[in-house]
């Protein structure tokens, strides 16, 4: 099976400061992958490279078997959507107007949005439970509301690969569960998902694969069971095993399973 996205030996540095070294991974169509790692380790950079907005210093990125550099921006945008952590607008755009921007890869310069575009926007707003916000000004929304609108904006692109950068930030636990339900639904629709996640409780049982990015270490991947072992997390996050509830809880879980 051809990978939807493949990064091979990717290096990236900001002004001489190496962020990614020899990052290699494949995303199979329909997979749901969590990207975990410490703050500032390069998760966002990896997602931006996967979305084609950053070019790696070396290595290759292929989308559906084709090198990213040979695919037009619009074609990439019809396949990959990146939902960023931050989105600030300079003017008072409504939520509807913001989500309509997701149709940009489908709309020609001289043509306005058509019926299919309006339907895609409505569907995206519905899926992200943001329809009721449609006429609100984006800049006046709460953090959680903005998060839902950003996800709707990504869904309006009708992507095959959805990249999410910290999608649960600013969401209360009820909304987090709804987001996870949405990810399951999108996966069932055949959409591949790669999400950087800080809340490791949500990673277990909801993602098929976990990618772990550690400072100065090669990118490693495995199932949640393999990657969320207390010993792996202790090393990756440099966190004493008896100081964080998650590690204590997982150590307990693994002890029970071992028995």
């Amino acid at each position: 099976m051809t990978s939807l996205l493949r990064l091979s030996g990717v290096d990236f540095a900001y002004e001489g400061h190496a962020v990614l070294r020899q990052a290699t991974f494949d995303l199979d169509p329909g997979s749901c992958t969590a990207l975990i790692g410490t703050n500032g380790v390069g998760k966002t950079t990896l997602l931006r490279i996967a979305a084609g907005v950053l070019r790696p210093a070396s290595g290759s990125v292929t989308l559906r078997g084709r090198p990213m550099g040979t695919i037009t921006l619009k074609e990439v945008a019809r396949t990959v959507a990146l939902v960023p952590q931050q989105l600030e607008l300079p003017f008072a755009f409504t939520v509807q107007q913001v989500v309509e921007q997701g149709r940009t890869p489908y709309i020609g310069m001289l043509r306005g949005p058509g019926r299919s575009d309006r339907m895609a926007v409505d569907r995206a707003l519905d899926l992200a439970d943001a329809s009721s916000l449609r006429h609100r000004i984006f800049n006046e929304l709460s953090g959680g509301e903005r998060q839902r609108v950003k996800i709707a904006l990504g869904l309006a692109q009708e992507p095959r690969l959805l990249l999410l950068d910290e999608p649960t930030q600013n969401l209360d636990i009820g909304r987090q569960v709804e987001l996870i339900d949405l990810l399951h639904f999108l996966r069932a629709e055949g959409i591949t998902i790669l999400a950087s996640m800080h809340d490791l409780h949500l990673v277990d049982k909801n993602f098929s694969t976990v990618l772990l990015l550690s400072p100065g270490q090669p990118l490693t991947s495995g199932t949640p069971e393999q990657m969320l072992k207390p010993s792996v997390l202790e090393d990756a996050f440099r966190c004493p095993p008896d100081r964080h509830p998650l590690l204590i809880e997982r150590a307990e879980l693994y002890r029970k399973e071992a028995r």
Partner: protein
Amino acid sequence: MALEIATVPGTSPAGELLAHGRREHRPGAVLVVLTAALGVVTLVSLATGAVSISPRTIVAAVVGYRPLSETQRLILFHLRLPRVLASGLVGSGLSLAGLLFQGLFRNPIADPYVIGSSGGAVFGACIGIFFFSQWSVFGFSATALLAFAGSAATMALVYALARSAGKTNVVTLLLAGFAISTMFTNTSYFFELFDRTGASNRILLSWLHGSIGTPASSELAVSAALLAGATVVALPLMRTLNTLALGDEYARQLGVPVESARVWIILIGSLLTAVAVSLGGMISFAGLIVPHVARLWLGPDHVRLLPVTALAGAIFLMLADTLARTILAPSEVPVGILMAFIGAPFFLYLLRKMKRSYAV
């Protein structure tokens, strides 16, 4: 999050009360009202002056009901009409340039005057006036071409200074624009030294103060054609400006060729500024205020804003210029100075009114 999927397309909120209580108007209705207002303001501007010619007389002459006297005809068609049309073109040009620059820089304070585009155009034009006044290329005077070159070069310089790590720093942009604008404006006074007759100095001063004279019909025609051409080319870029509001990186992620779009917007904005500066010199606030007012009426969608900004800009400067030539009659106040007096308080009022809308 609800997983039921709507199959009925949504409708535009235009003309509806938004959730926070602001009302957006229907673009068609605003265009009709502004077109009618443009007609009325043109008539009033033509009628107003040292020699009063009533609007009824003008309308009667236009429809062929009663001809004008020779004096009235001279005043109307050789003095006032070119000036009224020029003020309309200047207002449209500056307002559209303001709209483009505000959208490009994602900054509601950017306008040709503030970010140095006008200063660069005046500097280029000064070189044309003082050294190449007899030159022309393909029918365009060296002054006009150098005004465009000065405007575009200044914009590119300010933009390059404000860009860092793929982002536009707003504070650097405004400071760089202010510094370059001040430098060019003051350097323009240096050209006085090269003028022995004083003739060029008078032109220079009227440009620096912002004053709309009575242009030749050929100059008007070329300016109108350039403005119309720039507006047509800008039209497909309006949707791009909406996408650029999400940020350069997000726009690229949505398939927008950001670099080439940016170059086009700077070139068109510079051309519009050069057209306005060629006709009226340094006029502040029009490019700042008119897009703001248009956004109050229609929201931030640039596709809707383009025609409305062009019309509103023309009306605004026609009124301002009519006031400038009549308020201290028989003396005339340069419209640039008048704009500074009425523009600054009006802009401060708008800032207070709109402060919730901007994340600057």
